[in-house]
Each structure stands twice: as structure tokens, then as C-alpha cells.
């Protein structure tokens, strides 16, 4: 198949776009895809195509069979954005935040492959929306540190930290940590 844009190079990329629910297919070469901005060579590490091709194959053999399409009533579909698992597997992109819950059962293998075995977030938490979660993380961090202190037989510091954890758990704010000698 030749590239639909330059009609010179062989089409190595087969892109499927969903614009307002309308499916469009495009067969282009790497060069044209970059020029048109369909893929971002300068932004994302390697192209999404490289990364995701083959990624979904092991659990989406069904989606490659022509007889099965969107109208399949058993198809897993996001109630908010109407994206089907079939579409997600093909495009390699979520349609909305709720897709994460909808496709939850299929995600761990994908995340593990993309993120070197990781499946759970350990970084920043939104400050305003998730105050409690932040508290929870802080307590977890303190607990880990407590373990280290005990291992190091630094019992004096460990006792202080344990008091602080207790205070946090009983609902006091993290700011009134006492620094007495």
C-alpha cells in the first residue's frame, strides 16, 4: 500500500482517528505522518505506534476479526464517552477519565508493559481535591521511616515519630509537629 499523502513511500503507519465519533482511517508513511503532526517525534519518546503495536494483540484478537464490530452488544463500552474496548485497543488512547474504570480489568498488563512493570501511582496528589489522600500518604511515609529508625536502633527518634503518626491518625493536622529536645 502506498502513502495516501505523498503517493511515493510505502504506507507504514495505519492511523485510526475518532473525530466526533466518526471513524476515519489513514494510511501514510512515517515522513508524512510527522509532517502532518499525526505523530510527535519530538515530544513522546518513541512513537505511540511503536510502543503500542503488538501491545494489545494478546488480549484483543477478537477485535481483528472483521465480523465483530461496534454493534456487538457484549462489547465493553464506556458509559460516559461511548468508547468501546475494541476502539481503545485500536487507537491506544482513552476517551475519557471514566474509561479507566470501564476497562480496569484489562489495564494492568498494558501499564506493566509501558511502565516497566508498574501499575500504581506513587507521585503527586492534587492539593485541594485530595487532602485526605495526602494525609494517608504522609502517614505511610512516616511508617516507612519509623521502620528504618527501629532497624537503626534509633529508638528515641522512633518514639517521637510514632507519637506524630498517632496524632496524624487521630485527625490532627500535620503542621503541629513538636520539635522539643
Amino acid at each position, binding site marked *: 500500500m502506498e502513502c495516501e499523502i505523498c503517493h511515493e513511500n510505502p504506507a507504514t503507519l495505519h492511523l485510526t*482517528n*475518532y473525530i*466526533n*465519533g466518526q471513524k476515519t482511517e489513514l494510511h501514510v508513511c*512515517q*515522513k508524512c505522518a*510527522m509532517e*502532518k*503532526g*499525526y505523530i*510527535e*517525534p*519530538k*515530544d*513522546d*519518546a*518513541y512513537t*505511540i505506534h511503536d*510502543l*503500542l503495536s503488538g501491545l494489545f494483540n494478546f488480549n484483543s484478537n477478537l477485535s481483528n476479526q472483521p465480523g465483530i464490530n461496534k454493534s456487538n452488544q457484549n462489547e465493553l463500552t464506556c458509559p*460516559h*464517552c*461511548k*468508547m468501546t474496548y475494541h476502539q481503545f485497543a485500536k*487507537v*491506544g*488512547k*482513552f*476517551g*475519557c*477519565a471514566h474509561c*479507566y474504570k470501564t476497562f480496569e480489568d484489562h*489495564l494492568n498488563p*498494558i*501499564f506493566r508493559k*509501558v*511502565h*516497566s*512493570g*508498574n*501499575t*500504581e*501511582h*506513587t*507521585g*503527586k*496528589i*492534587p*492539593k*485541594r*481535591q*485530595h487532602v485526605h*489522600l495526602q494525609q494517608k500518604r504522609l502517614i505511610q511515609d512516616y511508617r516507612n521511616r519509623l521502620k528504618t529508625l527501629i532497624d537503626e536502633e534509633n529508638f528515641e527518634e522512633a518514639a517521637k515519630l510514632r507519637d506524630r503518626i498517632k496524632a496524624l491518625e487521630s485527625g490532627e493536622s500535620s503542621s503541629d509537629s513538636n520539635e522539643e529536645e
Partner: protein
Amino acid sequence: MSLQSFIDSAISPWMQEEGPDHDIVLSTRIRLARNFTDVPFPIVAEEEKLKIVSNWIKTHFNQQSFNQYEGLEYFEMSTLQPIEKRALVEKHLISPYLMEKEKESGVLVSKNEQVSLMINEEDHIRLQLYFPGLQLDRGLEEAFHMDDWLEEKIDYAFDEKRGYLTSCPTNVGTGLRASVMMHLPALTLTSKIGKMVPAINQLGLVVRGMYGEGSEAVGNIYQISNQITLGRSEQDIIEDLQSVVEKLIEQERFAREMLVEQSELRLEDRVFRSYGILKYSRIIESKEAAKCLSDLRLGIDVGYFNHLSRSILNELMVLTQPAFLQQYAQETLTPKQRDIKRATIIRERLGLEES
């Protein structure tokens, strides 16, 4: 327009400053991907849904200031001329992908062009901050502050288990892409860089050539960035990147010393030939220009030129891109005309240094 005032308008102010390790590191970028909760992602969202996002941004953040990032201004993609959009791409303020988008897409840029927020690109928000030289820690800190400031007014799509939810599975979790742009002529010349890449990849980091197609590094400029966004904290990601970049800096400096020691005359010859081409050519293609600029910059770094400033590489790499050449010429140019204009700008720019 005079060349000097054109340079002032074409080169972002932060780019003209010298940051830490500026002999090798050109710039640091921190990018955070964020989405609104309850609005579908741009890949499927209808126009009116995307409008919720763009209107919200305009209402709450247009014409606002945050710390040193003053005068945030929103530009709608649909109102910009193609050449203006290209110029934004060449300044790295927007992605080529955003340039192609029309509906309710835009960019919020601070006056100093250090911060840009791409709106309704692949995600609702792509916050980017740029710094001269190697400044990952500071970059992350300032990105976090800016992110907190945005979050005062925006309900982010966030999940306790998966973190910040993004359209592409490759960004989920932290949504962080930290990258460092490096000039590595000696590691390239000695073919050492190719041997280092697999080891760097093992750490979940990626090395790519800038300004080129695929993995080719035009102008010996490479971008090192993190690949993994899930399951590691932002600080850990930055730390790994920092240590790899430091290693590369050390190796590049060592390779430069070796070059000077072992093949001084060959190096000098190469540098001065390139200088000659830049100084006297009348027609020059972007690839040749990039190669010569890289040689010249290396020559400046090892001390062959005292009268030329280091910023010349960064500046001319931007100025000699198609959109800027045409803006300077104030007309559309054919590729052939661009090669002529490129040679002219380079000669004039070198002339500014020598006058």
C-alpha cells in the same frame, strides 16, 4: 526590521540566559499532562465539550500572572496564521500536533515565553516550563507550584490508584515528561553516544536526536527524557534523569579533552572549515547549517574563538528554521530561496558578533 530586533522577537528571553552547565546543556523542559474531570478527552470530545475547557482557561487564566510568569496570554489556534503557528512550533511553545488542530485548541503563553499551556491538545492541558541549562530540580519545583495554582480553579481527573488520568496510557500517573536538550558533538564524533544509549534506555530514559527525523541528531543535539510515568515519584524520575545527564556531561567533557589532546589539528581544521562555510556561503541547507553550527559551537567551547558568544548555536538553530526565515523575509519562500536567506541570516548574525 533589523536583524537584532528580529532576534529579540524570535528568541525567547529565557533562551538568551546562561544556565548551569550551559557549555553542554542547552535547556531543560518539564511537562505535566492534566485533564478536567468529567470532560471527555479531545480525541473523542465534541466541540462544545472542548469549549468548556477553553472557556474555563480563558475566564480564569487569560491575562493573569503567576510569580515571574507574567502576562499569560491565550492564543486560539483558529485565529493564527499558518506561519505564526509554525513559529510557535519552532520555539517549542506548541507541538506540531496542536498546530494541526482547530476546534477550541489554543495555547496560553507567559510574556517571557518560559511557560506555555497547550489547551485541548492530546490532553486538556499540557503545562510546559523551560529553563536554560540543566535545572531539573528547579523546573520540577516551579512546575508543581504552577500546577497547584491551576488546581485551585480546576478539578483534575485523578485516581488514587492510577494518578493523573491522561488520554494516552504512556502518560498516566505523574503525567510528567522531563527532558534535557544536550549538545554532544564529541560523543557523536567519537561514536561513543551510540554505545551509551542502550544503557540509558535500561533506566527507563530515552535518547533522541532533535531537529531530525527518527534517531538522527541534526546539529548533534540530543534530547534525553523519561519514558516511565507510572509507579515512580516525580522526584525519583528527575533524580534518574539528572544522574544520567551528569554522566553524559562528564563523558562529553572528557571526549572533548581527548579530541583536543589527540587530534588538535584535525579538530581545529574541522571547526575553522565550518566557520568559513558559515561566514562566506551564499546558499546553505538546514542540515549543513546545523552541522557547521555544531562545529562552531564546539570551537567556541574549547576556546578557539573569544569574540563569539555561545548562544549562537541555540539562536541560529531557531532562526534558520523555515518559519522564522520567512518571517524575517516577510514573504513565503521556496526551499531554494530559504537556503539563500538562511546563508544571509547566518552571515549577518556572525557580522553582529564581529562588529
